[in-house]
């Protein structure tokens, strides 16, 4: 399996069926719409922006109401909520809900209004508290702050900054207006910040006295109370209490509407779908009585689509897309390979000339991950957890499910490589048996132990690297042959095979290399010679053809030399696979560190408890770090080393017109 063949589809139908047809197409989700059709006098596109905005606003209102519910009437989410996926909703339930739309939206608006009320009232409380705070220095005043005086007297109520005694105020008054005698000053309260005054004088002297006080910074309160401050305080407290009560009441009302949650969720999905539908309708070319729709559809979905549209009076035409069309790409693979689709999409969808690399990548991906994670027990845990998720959670998003499956297969591969290298929680078995039972038990590795044979492991890593790179080159060869570019196939692939392959065989034959890796077999000298000749042919070939697009012979040779320089690229690519060794060792050695740390307290009860604690925490940490490392570096080997050899990418993913819901999966009866 690979890239699904795409067909161009054109549907022409009656306008009266538009609603129904668009609904069905959305539910099927197999057509990607485009706006290829030119507008003319008969066929016009409709502007649906207004309706769409209306629906999107409804989505927002419902979403906001949901947020309100989540704030004031939270439901406890199960621990692994993200794994439960979307709830399934049968079509019958869908229909009953769609009839209740207006009612649900009414609830949504009520909820939002309540939330607004709560917010406003909550903001009011600090304001009231601040007012009380400002009144505190005035509590001993037994007239209202707004008291102006009697028929013949004027009252000046206000504060001056700083601390003043009664004498100093009288002193200032005597200095400023010595002619006025009938003044009665009272200090209501005095702190270092301000002194609150109640000054009584004759009405005709009021302005003179006030002017005198102003020189000290006298100011009346900004919001004078109309009742004595103490009474004002209890009034404000009363108000806070009522506000609080109103807030609580509103909260209760919100909580009472918790049963609306499902309806609101549905409304979010429902209006999202309707907005999408109107967006799609906007792309249609419409005449007075008909509409015209074009798009792409996977070839395998065509028969089903035809059957679906049968009941309507419509014409459907399916043909192959043209050469220069930007056809969207949809990948389809079997269960073992399809986790790769996400990995491929993470790089770039396959371009026009590319094949879908998923089936070839899959086995390498699992193997590399396994070698880097390289512990049978870790692999078992990974496969166990992901396996349970796969079995228990059926409602997962397909892409998320594929990621989980990716780790499931990687886990199985890890178990295999762990057994090969004899690692089970590092050397846990040996440490436990040694510390607690006094005699050492080990499971010997099936292949070899990478910690004690790092050179062997390095060689194995390079071998995998060469196979991986040559597979990439083989795909390039296939691509060129398929495009009937036979010369390019020889120049760009075969010559490189000769050069790199020959070079490697020759290198393996050299005594230095044999010594270095302690190899037990010898390469016959005739093979070495043939390999050297092959490498020579490859090198000369690349030198001559590497710059073949240049006409100038001199420039051509120079460019050829430059392409030959690319051999360093192959060298670094192969060396890059040493990360298989490095990350594999990292897993094993860190596991060993934790095992040793755990066993430091010895073989008694305390030692056992410490060991269990260190063991659990340490290995969980190690698994976390190394799953991340293995994942990132497996991706890197695929993206940089492997894809670098043949993959162009640049394809456009197939985005069908479908139901993009957030909470529910509308179940389709087929």
């Amino acid at each position, binding site marked *: 399996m690979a890239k699904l063949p795409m067909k161009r589809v054109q549907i022409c139908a009656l306008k009266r069926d538009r609603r129904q047809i668009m609904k069905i197409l959305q539910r099927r989700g197999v057509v990607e719409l485009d706006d290829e059709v030119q507008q003319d006098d008969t066929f016009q596109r409709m502007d649906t922006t207004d309706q769409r905005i209306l629906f999107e606003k409804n989505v927002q209102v419902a979403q906001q109401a949901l947020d309100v519910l989540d704030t004031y009437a939270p439901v406890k989410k199960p621990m692994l909520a993200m794994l439960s996926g979307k709830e399934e909703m049968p079509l019958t339930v869908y229909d009953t809900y769609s009839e209740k739309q207006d009612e649900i939206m009414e609830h949504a608006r009520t909820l939002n209004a309540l939330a607004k009320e709560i917010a406003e009232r909550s903001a009011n409380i600090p304001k009231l508290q601040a007012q009380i705070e400002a009144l505190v220095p005035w509590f001993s005043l037994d007239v209202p702050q707004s008291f102006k005086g009697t028929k013949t007297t004027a009252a000046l109520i206000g504060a001056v900054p700083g601390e003043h005694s009664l004498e100093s105020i009288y002193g200032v008054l005597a200095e400023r207006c010595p002619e006025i005698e009938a003044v009665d000053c009272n200090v209501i309260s005095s702190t270092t910040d301000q002194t609150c005054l109640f000054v009584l004088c004759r009405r005709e002297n009021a302005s003179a006295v006030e002017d005198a006080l102003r020189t000290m910074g006298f100011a009346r309160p900004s919001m004078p109370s109309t009742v004595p401050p103490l009474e004002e305080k209890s009034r404000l407290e009363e108000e806070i209490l009522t506000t609080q009560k109103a807030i609580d009441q509103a909260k209760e009302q919100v909580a009472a509407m918790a049963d609306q949650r499902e309806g609101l969720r549905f409304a979010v999905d429902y209006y999202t779908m309707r907005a999408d539908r109107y967006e799609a309708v906007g792309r249609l070319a419409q005449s007075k009585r008909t509409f015209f729709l074009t798009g792409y559809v996977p070839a395998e979905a065509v028969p089903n689509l035809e059957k679906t549209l049968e009941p309507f009076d419509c014409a459907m035409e399916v043909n192959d897309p043209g050469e220069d069309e930007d056809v969207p790409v949809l990948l389809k693979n079997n269960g073992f390979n399809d986790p790769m689709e996400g*990995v491929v*999409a*993470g*790089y770039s969808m396959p371009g026009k000339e590319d094949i879908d690399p998923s089936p070839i990548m899959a086995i390498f991906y699992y193997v590399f991950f396994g070698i880097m994670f390289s512990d049978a027990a870790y692999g078992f845990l990974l496969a166990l957890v992901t396996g349970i998720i796969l079995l228990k959670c059926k409602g997962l998003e397909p892409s998320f499910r594929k990621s989980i499956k990716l780790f499931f297969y990687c886990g199985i591969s890890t178990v295999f490589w762990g057994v090969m290298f004899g690692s089970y929680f590092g050397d846990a078995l040996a440490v436990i048996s040694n510390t607690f039972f006094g005699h050492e038990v080990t499971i010997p590795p099936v292949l070899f132990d990478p910690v004690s044979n*790092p*050179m062997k492991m*390095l060689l194995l890593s390079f071998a995998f690297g060469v196979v991986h790179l040559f597979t990439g080159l083989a795909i390039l060869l296939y691509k060129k042959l398929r495009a009937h570019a036979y010369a390019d196939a020889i120049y760009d692939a075969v010559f490189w095979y000769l050069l790199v392959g020959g070079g490697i065989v020759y290198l393996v034959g050299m005594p230095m290399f044999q010594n270095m890796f302690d190899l037990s077999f010898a390469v016959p000298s005739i093979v070495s010679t043939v390999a050297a000749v092959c490498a020579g042919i490859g090198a000369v070939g690349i030198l001559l053809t590497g710059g073949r697009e240049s006409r100038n012979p001199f420039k051509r040779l120079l460019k050829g030399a430059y392409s030959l320089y690319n051999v360093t690229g192959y060298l670094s690519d192969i*060396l*890059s696979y*040493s*990360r298989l*060794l*490095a*990350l594999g*060792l*990292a897993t094993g*050695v*860190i596991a*060993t*560190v934790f095992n*040793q740390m755990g066993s430091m307290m010895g073989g008694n009860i305390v030692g056992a408890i410490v060991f269990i604690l260190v063991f659990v925490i340490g290995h969980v940490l190690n698994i976390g*770090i190394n799953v*991340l*490392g293995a994942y*990132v*570096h497996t*991706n*890197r080997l695929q*993206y*940089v080393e492997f894809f670098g050899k043949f993959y162009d990418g640049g394809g456009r993913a197939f985005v069908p017109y479908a139901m993009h819901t957030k909470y529910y999966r509308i179940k389709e009866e087929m």
Partner: protein
Amino acid sequence: MGLTFALLGAALAALLAGIGSAKGVGLAGQAAAGLVTEDPSQFGKALVLQLLPGTQGIYGLLVAFLTMSQIGIIGNPVEVSTLKGLLYLIACLPIAIVGLLSAIHQGKTSVASIGVIAKKPDQFGKAMIFPAMVETYAILALLVSILAVFGVNGLNL
């Protein structure tokens, strides 16, 4: 005397590589926190990018541990000659120094990659590769250090 040099090497491997990772992860963490305030749903991706410069510290630990177990700081004590101790010290240097510098640069690359997913969350695959490229050199240094430590252990000096 040999033991002193060898332990100095192990300590340097853990020290320098650890410092580098701490700095790299710190840098990336600041950027990741910024992204998460804007879009909490990107937490998972940001976390992966933040953790990428953390591996150098682990490589340093790995080499330090290997060295310590070879020279008997952990496990059975063995005789380490001065020359051998110096060789262990040199063997630890690649991961110590490359670990320090590569982790810092990887951290900076991670910051930039977090910028990528802030603007284009669907380009995570590509964003992840840039810091991973820097890591290559730490891995090569680790390899040299491991091979050298094992090699020194085999020498009869």
